[in-house]
């Protein structure tokens, strides 16, 4: 029986879909059988991120509605052996599925896959309740902004109420310089409020957008810093203890400065 992990946030646009895609690719690259479920019904985009849009025939609601078998709806990733996607319907709305159906669906998929990662829609309404219904574990994504952290806190409270305890936190779009200038919340500030385990910190990185537009994942880009952060997160999900990477982008420069006596 595989593990069902929901990726959620409360606030929209903080990087849930980006995280889901990268973790999926990362786990599959290590040889795991992974299924991604796009639970953002009515606003599908996980397929676009993975460049699989043109292969969709059936979607999640077709499976729960009994119009096709699970195997027919699961799409194989084109780059990554072992990675599959269950796409969301773009034409139906959130009420086309209920939490019981989602729970059953997650259980069925977990029979076949080692990791099942569910991309949750923003908000705390039915779409959220559907997405978490079948999850064993939760990952909460936030950005270092007051509003996003507030929503993450709200979500953690709701997850706890739904018996999804000890969610893990990913801080996305982290900008070292802005934190230095006290223009952004620091990792310590965020952990101080949310009081949950940190799974990783992903820096703000243009490469995320560049890869996304090519239907690729930044985790496969060996040189990108966000890719490195996601690779570390994947290993932490597997239970390895990997220290946080140095988030100071100018690390080299500062070292150089110190060496030549400028600092």
């Amino acid at each position, binding site marked *: 029986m595989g593990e069902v992990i929901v990726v959620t946030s409360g606030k929209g646009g903080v990087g849930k879909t980006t995280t889901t895609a990268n973790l999926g690719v990362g786990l599959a690259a290590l040889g795991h059988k992974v299924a991604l479920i796009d639970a953002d019904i009515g606003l599908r985009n996980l397929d676009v991120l993975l460049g699989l849009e043109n292969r969709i025939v059936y979607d999640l609601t077709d499976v729960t509605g009994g119009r096709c078998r699970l195997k027919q709806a699961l799409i194989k990733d084109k780059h990554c052996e072992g990675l599959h996607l269950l796409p969301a319907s773009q034409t139906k709305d959130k009420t086309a599925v209920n939490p019981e159906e989602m729970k059953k669906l997650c259980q069925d998929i977990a029979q076949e896959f080692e990791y099942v990662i569910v991309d949750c829609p923003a908000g705390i309404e039915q779409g959220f309740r559907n997405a978490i219904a079948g999850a064993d574990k939760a990952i909460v994504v936030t950005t270092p902004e007051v509003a996003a952290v*507030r929503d993450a*806190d709200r979500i*953690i409270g*709701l997850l706890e109420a739904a018996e999804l305890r000890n969610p893990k936190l990913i801080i996305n779009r982290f900008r070292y310089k802005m934190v230095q200038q006290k223009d952004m919340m620091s990792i310590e500030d965020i952990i*101080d*409020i949310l009081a949950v385990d940190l799974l990783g910190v992903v820096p703000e990185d243009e490469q995320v957008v560049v890869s996304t537009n090519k239907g690729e994942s930044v985790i496969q880009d060996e040189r990108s810093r966000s890719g490195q952060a996601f690779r570390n997160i994947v290993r932490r999900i597997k239970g390895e203890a990997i220290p946080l990477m140095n988030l100071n982008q100018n690390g080299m420069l500062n070292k150089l400065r110190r060496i030549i006596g400028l600092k």
Partner: protein
Amino acid sequence: MASEAKKETPSSPEKTLTGIKSNFIDSNTILVQRTLRAGQKIHFNGNVVILGDVNPGAEVVAAGNIIVMGNVRGVVHAGAEGDTQAVVMAFRLQPIQLRIANHITRSPDEEEMSGTYPEVAHIKDGVVTIEAFSTGGER
């Protein structure tokens, strides 16, 4: 939650906790053994003791005193039924808004240097005053 709370048997009236002169000192008290997160609320017709934090976006309203064994960053209202003797006490007191009876204060708009020591808020000469909490003696 509030309705599930049991009545405490009142202890002897002369054994009062330092400085708390509120009428509610010996009445109902509930113990909340977790952090209140954004969007979570507690309303109680007595004292509230929280073993955790009150996060931004969370709210505690009590007819009596509010004691938080943690950080207060949300909204707290003690003496909500009009008891001006009620107090709010916390390990760290940095509320967005703090009310006692019908007196309201809010956090300063600029970044405030708050101490890392326990503080108590009470009404003194008609204004909400926040002071370091020290045991023993009158404030």
